């Protein structure tokens, strides 16, 4: 997907094309065609006016994504894409300004949770992935009760490794899935960790996981 203000869509497209065929969907497209999975990329959709992700959810393409997700289609939201998916109610919680106020940009480790999702099909609980984060609004928040529920229902996909929480996220949460598991939101950027040249290929496991389920 590409919104006005997206900035990670090319890397997302590249990451997808390493695991299968991929094409860009412009935000005005109402028809996704016969895609097997959708990636809502990072950036600053619609300038992030009002709140990060708040406007993007009303785009025609996001309406199509919501229908695709409701029908069980795998949807991955990364960073701003995670914010968009929370804003449109496909994922629980919200992403608040980082606790330390600053924009954070660094490589860190994620620990896989027990969540079940097509994107996690090649990843086991406890696996460690090295991927970068880069965001100002990444502090995951869920109201009291819902956090416990997410943990109990095995919906926490990734936590930041102990001591590496970059933004004050509740329970070190870096990524969650919806109830059915087909929608995954991640604050870190697996699409920037698909080539040894940039230090890690761990992110590729998320894209190839979804591709192997679709195949």
């Amino acid at each position, binding site marked *: 997907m590409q919104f006005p203000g997206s900035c990670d869509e090319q890397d997302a497209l590249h990451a997808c094309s390493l695991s299968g065929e991929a094409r860009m969907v412009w935000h005005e497209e109402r028809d996704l065609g016969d895609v097997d999975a959708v990636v809502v990329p990072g950036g600053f959709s619609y300038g992030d006016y*009002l*709140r990060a992700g*708040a406007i993007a959810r*009303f785009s025609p393409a996001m309406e199509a994504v919501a229908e695709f997700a409701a029908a069980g289609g795998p949807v991955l939201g990364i960073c701003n894409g995670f914010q968009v998916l929370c*804003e449109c109610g496909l994922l629980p*919680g*919200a992403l*608040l*300004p*980082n*606790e*330390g*106020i600053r924009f954070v940009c660094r490589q860190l480790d994620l620990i896989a949770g027990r969540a079940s999702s097509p994107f996690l099909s090649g990843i086991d609980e406890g696996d460690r992935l090295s991927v970068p984060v880069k965001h100002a609004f990444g*502090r995951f*928040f869920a*109201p009291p009760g819902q956090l416990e529920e997410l943990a109990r229902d095995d919906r926490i996909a990734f936590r930041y490794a102990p001591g590496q929480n970059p933004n*004050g996220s509740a329970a070190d949460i870096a990524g969650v899935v919806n109830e059915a598991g087909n929608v995954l939101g991640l604050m870190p950027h697996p699409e920037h960790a698909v080539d040894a040249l940039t230090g890690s290929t761990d992110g590729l496991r998320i894209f190839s996981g979804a591709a192997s389920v679709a195949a």
Partner: protein
Amino acid sequence: MKARVLIRPKEGILDPQGKAVERALPALGFERVSHVRIGRLVELETETPDELDALCEKLLANPLIEDYEVELL
């Protein structure tokens, strides 16, 4: 009809922006200021003020993390 919508972080939610402003104040000699919270003010004109609550719930505020107040002018 003109309306103002005041949106602010829910009580209990950490507001780093407010904290940053609060920490800057003593350096300027304002020593006795605390509990700074930062929100947004939206001004608009509408012919259907009945819809304002729905509009706030759906777009202007995220009810999970923000409270809002509508003031008709």
